[in-house]
């Protein structure tokens, strides 16, 4: 039995929206990083699901790259986190607004 493609889509879109909401609503940079990971993983589910639907390996192939990119993103994100924390002793992103207008 094959799981219908709709289920993958519903799961992934829900995850994507949750992730997006996390980015938009949370103030802590760590949580935002996690939310972005959630969005990326929603895409991964999409890709894998479609890959199965179309009976091709391209999607799974793509997922490998997304994962690598996500890891690199996390690394850069953590680097920025340490730099921010070292200078301002906080990770609340709404406090970083010296440049505006």
């Amino acid at each position, binding site marked *: 039995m094959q799981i219908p*493609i709709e289920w993958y*889509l*519903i799961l992934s*879109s*829900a995850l994507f929206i949750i992730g997006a909401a996390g980015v938009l609503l949370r103030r802590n940079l760590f949580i935002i990083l996690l939310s972005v990971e959630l969005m990326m993983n929603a895409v991964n589910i999409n890709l894998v699901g479609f890959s199965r639907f179309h009976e091709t390996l391209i999607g799974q192939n793509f997922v*490998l790259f997304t994962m*690598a990119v996500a*890891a690199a993103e*996390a*690394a850069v994100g953590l680097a920025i986190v340490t730099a921010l924390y070292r200078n301002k002793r906080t990770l609340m992103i709404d406090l970083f607004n010296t440049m505006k207008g």
Partner: protein
Amino acid sequence: MVNATVDIFIQFFLMIVLAAGMFVAMLWIVHRLMPTSRNPNKGIPYECGVRPTGDARVPYNVHYYLVAVLFVLFDLEAVFMYPWAVTLRTLGTVAFVDMLVFIAILLVGFVYAWKKGVLSWE
């Protein structure tokens, strides 16, 4: 097959609109309903009673983060090695050389990190 996907897209779009709409609506409702008084006291763990001292989070050595980041990055090469390992026999020498190049590039990063003193734990 393709027409089926078209239908999926429309359903899917409705799904996203609903999800986003819910999220915006709830935000808005909460924003309208909540009494807003901003007070730094509300941010502290106990609004009355003992003032908390110190930080609940134990500060780790910043070195730890560096090592963790490096770990994540080097850990990820395994992702590429699994499919490679499985299909190595059919792909032959080309794949082997490819992987050597890949590892060589990672090695440069490793040497760089080493020379920069990330790995020496004081």
